[in-house]
């Protein structure tokens, strides 16, 4: 075994840091945040993106990240909220420059948001192509996949029952009942999403497990995913998650099939809306410009 490195070196390699771009340097449809899937040229022409010579080039990103790698400050770098274009542009630019390519891409992903498997990200990330890992976030769809909003809807979806909605607001069960997150996370509560959640809840129940367990174990079995990031509000939630991830048995082929059948009814439930209006700067509640 080699001798311990000198202190200077030890300082720099003491942390296994993966440094990610929180969202792309350029304009790209922020589909991960429930906004438009459609690339809008007018948005890209805006001075915010075009000033100062436009967004930082892929070359400069790769070279800057390589500097951090060479200095021993990071072990790898990656992308978040990006798409197959950004991913492949980074890996191919790194290859051309001879620098370290990104090792990961992170995105919104859950049993009700499978778009990354179907929009080219999974293909680009595959070990046979760009060989990049995938980190899933919001695997429980902001709490919707715990089932806790199934019987009594989130405050903002419960306007028909004002008294109950006020009660939910005053005694929130989670983020969905609060004013800030309640509207930010609307994408997980579209009619299509809620219909799918009910169906997945039935599958979970029929198989003697909670919807949370079904949702997390489903993630674990997707070939795209390297890891699933889960947030918790208390340690008992965390213990449940750890229990599911330590289970040896995969979900059966029948369960996976039953889930696929529901998925086929609407493959993009987060991007559907029955509540589109002209009231919000011509956008729907989902924040997407009306095509």
């Amino acid at each position, binding site marked *: 075994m080699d001798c311990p490195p000198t202190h200077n070196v030890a300082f720099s390699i003491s942390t*296994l840091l993966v440094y990610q771009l929180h969202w792309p340097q350029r304009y790209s449809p922020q589909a991960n945040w429930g906004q438009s899937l459609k690339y809008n040229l007018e948005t890209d022409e805006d001075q915010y993106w075009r000033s*100062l010579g436009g967004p930082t080039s892929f070359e400069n990103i790769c070279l800057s*990240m390589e500097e951090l790698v060479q200095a021993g400050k990071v072990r790898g770098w990656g992308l978040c909220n990006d798409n197959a274009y950004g991913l492949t542009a980074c890996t191919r630019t790194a290859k*051309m420059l001879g620098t370290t390519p990104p090792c990961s891409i*992170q995105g919104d992903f859950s049993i009700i948001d499978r778009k990354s498997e179907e929009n080219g990200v999974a293909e680009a990330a595959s070990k046979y192509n760009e060989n990049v890992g995938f980190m899933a976030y919001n695997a429980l769809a902001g709490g919707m996949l715990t089932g806790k909003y199934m019987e009594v809807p989130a405050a903002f979806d419960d306007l028909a029952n004002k008294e109950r909605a006020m009660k939910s607001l005053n005694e929130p069960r989670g983020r969905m009942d609060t004013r800030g997150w309640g509207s930010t996370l609307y994408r997980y509560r579209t009619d299509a999403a809620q219909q799918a959640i009910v169906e997945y809840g039935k599958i979970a129940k029929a198989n003697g497990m909670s919807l949370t367990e079904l949702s997390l174990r489903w993630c674990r079995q997707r070939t795209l995913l*390297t*890891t699933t990031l889960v947030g918790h509000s208390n*340690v008992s939630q965390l213990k449940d998650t750890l229990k599911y991830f330590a289970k040896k048995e995969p979900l059966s082929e029948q369960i996976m099939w039953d889930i696929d059948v529901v998925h086929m009814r609407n493959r993009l439930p987060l991007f559907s809306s029955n509540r589109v209006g002209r009231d919000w700067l011509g956008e729907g509640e989902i924040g997407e410009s009306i095509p």
Partner: protein
Amino acid sequence: MISLALLPFLLTVADAFTGSPSLNFLKTSIIPCHGASTLLRESVGSTDEQQSKVCNRRRSLVLGAGGGMFSGFFNSENANASNPDSAGKFKSKGSTNEIVKVVNGIKHRRLGGSGVVVSEIGLGTQRWVSSDFNAPDENACFGFMDEAILKSGVNLIDTAESYPIPSGGGAKEGDSERLIGKWMKDRKVNRENVVIATKITGGRNINPKNIRANCDGSLKRLGTDYIDGKLLSQESTITTF
């Protein structure tokens, strides 16, 4: 059947992990593997996955033989066409998502072609010590990391320089990173055993100057001035993944 070629590799992993005083109660279980050494990448897997993998392997061996027979018909330059690592200095350490080890029942997979290996469940930290009504406080977050990282097989924490969200009031941006740094220092955690993924704020904020400066800022908040040289030397083999 355990491939002989694989044994030294497995022992290195086991040694590296059990050698850590701060984490020596973590049991690294290396599961028995099947398959020939040429299939090394796939041969470390859970028992559940083995059945299907054995089948897949047989299938791919058959297809592989066919491919060899007909390869003359195809453009031979195709061999490395889709390998992004074939040029330049960077050498891939392996295939993304391959299971490298299992710790306390939790699989650890390679992240891209890098030497970083992460547990297939990671801790999300966006709301840690945030201004949310039900945000976990510092004490609760220390409990999460104790439970997941020290007592279970998790090694990944995902954060960002802009976390917690929402901030405001007593909660300010950067607190999530500070909290993680504080915990590692408090629990004397060997940093080689924890993977921290953090993020530079996106959009026009991303430029060479900020990538440099903001990374230094994150490292500072994560407290990299803390170092345990003794542990580091014992763990240095792990970087060979």
